[in-house]
């Protein structure tokens, strides 16, 4: 068990970003090729540009519902997902755009889903909080805080039942640690030795409530895993190398020993819980957000790192950014040009047996609207 850290601090002006004694030399990172490192930068930038573009259209009122932006947290999804093998699976909560793009979902289908179009990844039935791509081992996209934590456990259970060497990365926010379903899942994960990694993306605020106002244990959230005899760790979410190194270690524990891990990743979101409370001054100051943007931004830090390592130039980075902007704009146009789902699709995708026109699906009445 790691030594208890000091309480997770909110960044201060004089803080130096990134501990120079870093994780670049960790085995999982030392073997990285420049192309892969640049690929991580590209993925983070793509996520950011996708969301910035989606925000622009959201603010024009052309989308419904909520928009929970991941901006500021990109290194977590990109760093963790970069480690996935064939039998490793991902599930997350409603702040799910970053993970979706990181696993390889296309901007077009994701943007179209936000616009509620037929070409959306869920055919316009899920919206921002409910992106899925089971062909990419991505199981959503879940709207209820903590509700996905038993599902992630079930993915791990299924892998173990089938005798596959894989694991489930189950992402959650800091607010979810206070849900009962999470604690039931931790007990079951430890009891049945299931290969699940719970990744708490601690962005410091569960909606507008700080850790100090929501958690009885204030030093950290992962520490609660002690109560279940589960190994836990904390990673600095600004540093892609550290995220990868610590996630790799948790995944090894899952693969080799079929044991769970709780990994808390310290991160920060620049926008609100959703757009409605963006930068609400009630619970944090604009100065605090600026400090993170200026000193702790994962994209800015990774870019600097790659330039320092001599694998990237400013011009390369600008080209990546331009391409991402263009890709996001193209996706928005694709969404705008796409058709609205046809009314009859309301009754599709409810029952597998009905959709597949099986005997079971045609016996008895399944729908009660006339």
């Amino acid at each position: 068990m790691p030594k208890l850290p000091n309480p997770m601090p909110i960044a201060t002006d004089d803080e130096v970003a990134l501990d120079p004694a870093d994780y670049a030399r960790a085995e999982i990172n030392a073997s990285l090729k420049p192309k892969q490192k640049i690929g991580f930068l590209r993925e983070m930038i793509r996520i950011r540009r996708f969301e910035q573009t989606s925000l622009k259209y959201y603010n024009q009122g052309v989308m419904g519902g909520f928009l929970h932006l991941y901006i500021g947290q990109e290194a977590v999804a990109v760093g963790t997902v970069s480690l996935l093998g064939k039998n490793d699976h991902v599930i997350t909560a409603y702040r799910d755009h970053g993970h979706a793009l990181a696993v390889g979902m296309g901007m077009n289908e994701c943007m179209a889903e936000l616009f509620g179009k037929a070409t959306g990844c869920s055919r316009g039935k899920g919206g921002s909080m409910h992106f899925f791509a089971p062909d990419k081992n991505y199981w959503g996209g879940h709207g209820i805080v903590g509700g996905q934590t038993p599902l992630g456990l079930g993915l791990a259970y299924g892998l173990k039942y089938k005798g596959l060497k894989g694991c489930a990365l189950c992402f959650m926010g800091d607010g979810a640690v206070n849900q009962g379903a999470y604690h039931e899942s931790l007990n079951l994960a430890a009891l049945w030795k299931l290969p699940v990694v719970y990744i708490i993306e601690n962005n410091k605020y569960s909606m507008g409530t700080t850790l100090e106002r929501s958690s009885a244990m204030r030093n950290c959230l992962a520490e609660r895993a002690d109560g279940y005899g589960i190994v836990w760790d904390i990673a600095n979410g600004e540093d892609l190398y550290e995220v990868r190194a610590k996630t790799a270690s948790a995944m090894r524990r899952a693969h080799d020993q079929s044991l769970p891990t709780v990994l808390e990743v310290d991160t920060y979101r620049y926008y609100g819980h959703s757009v409605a409370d963006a930068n609400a001054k009630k619970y944090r100051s604009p100065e605090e957000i600026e400090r993170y943007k200026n000193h702790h931004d994962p994209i800015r830090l990774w870019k600097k790192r790659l330039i320092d390592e001599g694998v990237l130039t400013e011009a390369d980075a600008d080209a990546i950014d331009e391409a991402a902007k263009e890709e996001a704009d193209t996706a928005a146009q694709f969404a705008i040009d796409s058709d609205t789902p046809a009314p009859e699709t309301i009754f599709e995708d409810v029952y597998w047996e009905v959709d597949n026109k099986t005997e079971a699906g045609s016996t008895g009445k399944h729908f009660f609207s006339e």
Partner: protein
Amino acid sequence: MPLITYRKALNDALAEEITRDENVVIIGEEVAQYNGAYKVTEGLWQRFGDKRVVDAPISEAGFIGMGIGASMLGIRPVMELMFWSFAYVAWDQIINNAGQVRYMSGGLINCPIVIRGPANGGTSVGATHSHTPENFIANTPGLKVVCPATAYDAKGLMKSAIRDNDPVCVMENTLLYGESWEVPEEEYLIPLGVADIKREGTDVSLIAHGRAVITALKAAEILAAEHDIHAEVLDLRSIRPLDEEAILNTVRKTHRAVLVDENKPFCGVSAQIAATIQEKAFDDLDAPVQRVCALDAPAIYSPVLENLQLPTVSRIIEKVLQIR
């Protein structure tokens, strides 16, 4: 045909499906080493071992949700709730995850899970243990729910439920577990969504599900013997999908309907059946549709009063006589 209990019929269904499909796994509280709180899973752990029959701690949200997650990967978990009354602590998992994930994923995911256990009053265990949530489940498109009334139906419906590729909730009844019916030795399936006429009749239709079917059959016997009224008893068996044709056919035949329902009356299953009849068979009715439901208060403990609270033979007869 051998007479076997409702409990044994379920046990046989589970054993047959575990044998048939390596992805079927039974998970629940006390299902393995204790042989099941109501002995439905008796002997299965000894026979099939730790992998296929799994004792879960008392964590319904955790293990039901886990089963749903596993089912997304193609495992076919049969989850036992010791009582369906305990489903409420797993409600988010059942309704939001099992019930909605297919829709929200635009059809990319399905959950071939069965959640089963008893859902009934009449055993003096108080309100917390006497819920009949089939109406809540049926109110959730994406979920299916069946309520077998006999051993024969319990076995055939359970096997179909396990093979179904959608989430199916099977609601059993502790008062029926020990009752026996004829069950054939050869394999059979009963499709979900097919009702069954348990007694033919011409004068009035008694439409019921679960143990209310048994009560309706007793009432029909007395109506015939003492009042020369020949009641047809239609067992819905499956609530969603629903055999609407069978409901309309019996009403068109008898022109009178009394709905018998251990569910509560307000927004209960019988409310839906009544709405269906008035929408589609209004002109066939010679009298208003009547309902005999659980009396509309929380399930009472007092054994004497609880028996009055659930539909009784005399309340059914009284309603039939009102509209004869």
